[in-house]
């Protein structure tokens, strides 16, 4: 939950303004653009973590061992 709020704040004021500039360019993208993509990847990792730490009650045992 805390990570979720942190990511949300990363996408808006007050955190995003800290990374809103153009320099440094990352992989050819301005920092403001790259930051948003980082946040998106962050959301993906958060969801992945939710999923992997989920007990998966209904799935077969082989899936649980993941």
């Amino acid at each position: 939950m805390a990570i979720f709020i942190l990511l949300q704040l990363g996408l808006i004021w007050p955190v995003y303004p800290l990374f809103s500039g153009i320099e440094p360019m990352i992989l050819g993208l301005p920092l403001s653009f790259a930051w948003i993509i980082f946040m998106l990847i962050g959301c993906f990792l958060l969801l992945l973590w939710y999923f992997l730490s989920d007990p998966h009650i209904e799935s077969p045992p082989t899936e649980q061992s993941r």
Partner: protein
Amino acid sequence: MEQWVIILGICGLYLAITLAMGIIPGRNVSNSISGYVAGDRSMNLLLLYFVMGASIFSSFAFLGGPGWAYSRGAAAFYIIAYGATGMIPLYFFGPKVRRLGEKHGFVTQAELLEDRFNSQSLSVILAVLSIVVFIPYLTLQMKGAGYIITTISEGAVPQWAGAGVAYLVVLVYVFYSGVMGVGWTNTFQGLFMMVIAWFLGLYLPEKLYGGVGEMFTQIANSPNINGSQMLTAPGLAADGTPWSWWGFSSAVLVSAIGFSVWPHFFMRSFAAKSDKTMKLTIVLYPSFQLFLVPILLIGFSAILAYPGVQPADTILPFILTQLELPVVIIGFVCAGALAASMSSGDAILHSAASVGVRDGLAKFLPDRWNTDRKQRQLIRLFVILISLIAYYFAVVSNVPIVNLLLGSYGGVAQIFPLVVGMFYWRQANGKGALAGLCGGIVVTVLFLIYPEWRPVPLHEGIYGLIVNIILFVSISLATQPESESQINRYINA
């Protein structure tokens, strides 16, 4: 043979494949409401992923996304920002929604809320709200499709014919196959769009500037368009002045809150095969969001190369007519843009008809009309009716319908507090929910029409949400909760 004939031929081929993919799966689902609206609750990961992804990426993404990047620079990152977190709540609601649907036979969002809050009025209000936001949405998709066909045929095919043919295909498969038609065509259309978007998004900066990095460096250093201002978040507002952090943040927040409760999106949870399918779809969803990156690159690539194109939303077709691209590629891009329009249009059409009948009309019909078979026929009738209304607005009427759509995110976001209350707050009751929803919608609409009344320049939906939550909480606390068994069903779902 003229060039545009080949391009149209490719688009025609695409339409034919879509039609076939839309009709075939309809033969395998049962002839019931659950089959038509929720695909017999049998969608696997692949289908669900593309249905959810492709129905969000509409004409707006393909035409509006590059348009924003082109005219407003970093403001366009808003589109990626709200989708990133907007999806996360559905990870928690989705499986609950699915299980309740399976157990009690629900197929729409309003049915769930009606049952939990024991209020028919709530269901009817939600049905009306859904149709009010869906019709302009569908109209814009049709306009987009018509526009693409007209532009590439150099005016030989008028807009009414282009929109008509594309949406006749949609009408046929939605009418015939219901949600499974939407599912299979979206899978095909989604893949198609992704390939096209990545190709163009990387090709254009390479061709025009010699690379993505080089492109951004040139934009940032360009003095006459104030490029550095443009690339610094949050970019420019619609009038070309720098956008405020208030405006950007509140717009992202409202859209993110509304994202997971859009009726056509939310109700796909009922179609999921299992909880695991549902959860995995959400986990993988950000990969669909990544597809917006090349879309925005397309818009950025035009800033220096083609200044002054008006309106900004026409930038993608404009680039296509300017570049010396092989004719087959142009054909594919146009088909890709059609795919974007149709894959959202079909989901919206299907949901609008289902919600309109199940949650609106059915409440006023005598019992003998409310059989499964009759309702299914009514939904199909609504599919035709809603297509015709949207088509009328798209090609005949000149009512500025875009304004309606602008307000829709603020309106839809008002459903969110109710959904949270439904699952996580025992005290939440029907009176509170009704008051909150109505209050929130009224305030949102009011501030949308009179923006100068806002105390601070926040998105109107934020004010609506504040009023919504205050009313919902206070009235729920002041009145009796719903019956214990009902609450438990949802809290423990």
